[in-house]
């Protein structure tokens, strides 16, 4: 898991560099600083468990098992990308690893995940669905509609809120009087906990408990992970709305540093941890080289996959 934290951290760093160099089209949103939530939750998921993430989803997808090169190739718009360059950073899908989607419209993924959970329930499967979302999503009506449905139908669904304190550029206390996202779960009788989302050990243990409850048939669970967005809302965001003190404090909160302290205290040699970091760095570099060398999509294929049946391609004008 230490390796996966580094993979995500360095992957996001690479996306940031490529974006600065003009190699990433559009608006990539980085999860730097929130890696422990992705890794701690996804460690308990099988390939058949459905993952639905948000616009800030690179970390979740990598933690679920998606290939570094194919994910990066998608983010830089290559034919070898997960979605053949059709989706990009905000619409990553990797069915082979149960990554069923990411949505660029905040809160849009929640009901889709409920659908995956309902399908598993209706088909008599033991799988669950996980939806990652930010605290900003709680302002959307569909968040509340989905909580109600999930509770009513006892859906096997894990809601994971990454509360990083910001809805885009506005801090939480400016957009809601409800301090904690877990408070929204209570009226719907959904079990919930607010936890330290930057401590991988805590996330891992609490996610295990939540998922065990869901797999035991007790219905949905909402885990609110307090975390910290080390990067801006999007690449290029100057973050003038955050204080110097706040940005300095995040070094202290860094989930990688914290896990490192745990592991050193448990007697893991520093050389082993350093070697993992170097290996992760090499993996990302290799993946990046290959992804950047990959072919760009052929413009002649732009109409592929609008419909399943080619006979439905009738609107040509």
């Amino acid at each position, binding site marked *: 898991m230490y390796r996966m934290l580094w993979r995500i951290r360095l992957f996001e760093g690479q996306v940031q560099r490529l974006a600065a160099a003009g190699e990433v089209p559009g608006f990539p949103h980085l999860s730097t600083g929130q890696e422990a939530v992705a890794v701690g939750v996804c460690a308990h998921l099988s390939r058949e468990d*459905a993952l*639905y993430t948000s616009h800030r989803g690179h970390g979740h997808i990598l933690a679920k098992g998606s290939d570094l090169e194919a994910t990066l190739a998608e983010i830089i718009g290559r034919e070898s*990308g*997960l*979605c*053949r*360059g*059709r*989706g990009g950073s905000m*619409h990553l*899908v*990797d*069915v082979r690893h149960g990554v*069923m*989607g990411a*949505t*660029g*419209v905040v809160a*849009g993924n*929640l*009901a*889709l*995940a*409920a*659908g*995956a*959970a*309902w*399908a*598993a329930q*209706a*088909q008599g499967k033991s799988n669950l*669905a996980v939806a990652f979302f930010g605290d900003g999503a709680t302002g959307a*009506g*569909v968040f509340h*509609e*989905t909580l*109600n*449905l999930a509770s*009513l139908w006892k859906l096997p669904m894990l809601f994971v809120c990454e509360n990083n304190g910001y809805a885009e550029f506005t801090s939480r206390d400016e957009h809601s009087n409800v301090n904690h996202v877990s408070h929204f779960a209570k009226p719907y009788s959904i079990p919930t906990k607010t936890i330290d989302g930057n401590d991988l050990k805590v996330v891992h243990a609490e996610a295990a408990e939540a998922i065990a409850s869901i797999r035991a048939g007790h219905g949905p669970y909402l885990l609110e992970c307090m975390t910290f967005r080390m990067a801006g809302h999007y690449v290029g965001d100057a973050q003038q709305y955050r204080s110097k003190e706040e940005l300095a404090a995040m070094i202290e909160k860094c989930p990688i540093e914290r896990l490192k302290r745990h592991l050193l205290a448990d007697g893991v040699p520093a050389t082993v941890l350093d070697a993992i970091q170097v290996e992760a760095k090499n993996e990302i570099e290799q993946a990046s080289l290959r992804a950047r060398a990959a072919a760009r999509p052929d413009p002649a294929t732009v109409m*592929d*996959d*609008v*419909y*399943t*049946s080619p*006979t*439905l*391609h*009738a*609107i040509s*004008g």
Partner: protein
Amino acid sequence: MAIHTFIDILKRALDEEMTRDASVHLLGEDVAAGGAFGVTRGLADKHGATRVRNTPISEAAITGLATGAALAGIRPVLEIMFIDFATLALDCLLNQTAKYRYMSGGQLTVPLVVRTQAGAAGGAAAQHSQSLETFFIHIPGLVVVAPSSPIEAYGLLKSAIRLGEPVIFIEHKRLYTMKEELPQDFALPAIGKARVAREGTDVTLIAYSAMVQTALEAAKELESNGISTEVIDLRTLLPLDMDTISQSVSKTHRVLIAHEAVQNGGMGAEIAARIGAELFDELDGPVQRVGCPFAPIPFAPELERALLPGSHHIVQVARRMMGLESV
């Protein structure tokens, strides 16, 4: 042979598809009790509460849920009680459902049918009477179907469920009580193909949904004026079957498009533009449209009647096109 109302025949189509394919599930507000119009009455008893599922009044969430379930191998038939309420589900339908196959690079499909009900039929007023099909025909990835009679609804609904694409299936509430006899040998219609509902040689009259019945009435009256009208029932609004339109226009050289939706920016505008671009040399005169004037649907029956396009409007415009009436 049994005579069916539109409502009964929809129920029969759903029942048969649920029996044929165990992955077909019904979802929607009140569907277990039959829905607002009784289309699904009795199906929960026959197929079980899991497959005929009542939902809260949460259009955004239930549309998302149905889409997510479709992505996971279920074939949901979601009922949105009135098309006016589909506005609450537009984020999902436009941003997610329609684009999933494309955005995923072909990894996933959304075999979802959204049954909804539209149009004016006496006093339902401005928020329960609209014809909002143009919201959907603008979105790549969706299929839009609007049946014109009970037999048409039976075949098109079954075809829509089997299609494996996201289909917006628009039923007109005025047709719900219409009765027809279902023929014994019945070939399912192909989605994306229009039909010629009546043959003629002077004017091509293009319509869909309940307006096809109005168009057939108008065609009868025009016949007594010596005008031979060919009525095309589009069946599928997206994609549009230009081949059938083209064949007819090559014969008649005059086109009139009729729909209940507001004329401004409506289906007729798209068809007229396509005909203008692709069939200009075939035309003897400008393509004409009959649609609703630019106002919300009023409540009082005499106001509603005054606003809605009827067969007399179609007759008037067609006579003018034939030079029988001054402008």
